[in-house]
């Protein structure tokens, strides 16, 4: 089973406790990974515009979210 299929399977889990806990943890993991990658990109000289394009979000959104961290 591919990862995407597994995600789809759990997302449709009939037990809300399992499904929701998985979604919550996935969101937490996503936030941590995004922060690490944005920080790394900035320290390698990437512009906010480049980072935004890679993340498929607007430059304003990514800048607003991370500038306060001093990246």
């Amino acid at each position, binding site marked *: *089973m591919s990862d995407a299929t597994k995600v789809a399977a759990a997302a449709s889990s009939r037990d809300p406790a399992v499904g929701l806990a*998985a979604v*919550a943890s996935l969101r*937490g*993991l996503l936030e*941590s*990974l*995004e*922060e*690490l990658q944005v920080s790394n990109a900035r320290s390698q000289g990437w512009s906010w515009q480049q980072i935004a394009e890679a993340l498929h979000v607007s430059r304003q959104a990514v800048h607003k979210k991370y500038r306060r961290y001093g990246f």
Partner: protein
Amino acid sequence: MFERFTGEARQVVVEAQEEARTRAADEIRTEHLLAAIYIVRDNLALAVLDELGVEEADVLRDIDRLHAGSPRALDAEALSSIGIDLDEVRRQVEEAFGPGALDRTRAALGGRSGGLFGHIPFEGPSKKALELSLREALHLGHDHIGAEHILLGLVHTEGGAAHHVLAARGVRLEPARAVVEKLVRQRKAAG
């Protein structure tokens, strides 16, 4: 509002901030103030709790439990149910970014507003508890606000977790007030 706080009471407020930071909370909550009373040690609030038969270990364990279900903690079991091996993700991330990288992000430490060094705001019930500590002192005719009045403020503030932790150990406002009144009187007589 902190002018009339004793050195002890100020220390409780400072330690509460430290407690919130240690627990990766984005606000200083009433349970952090309660835990701080135990960190500061020598204070009248501890004598009051002692007199009321409240065990330190029970209170601290209850406070720990409040934080146990933190939504920010990554749940390895839940992630494995969707085919994600958290240990493997952590291993790969640490290979690229160093030991502890995944668990040291601001997202993992809990909060966009908190961070490691930033100012942590008081949540509503904490502010209320500190305001009520002033009112409790006035009510008892005391001209200072000590740790014991902060304790009364915490018991008084029903919207805060500290109220419920203490209520579960049998602490009620009126008897607690009576003990504070007695101990302050005794201390004055002795000093």
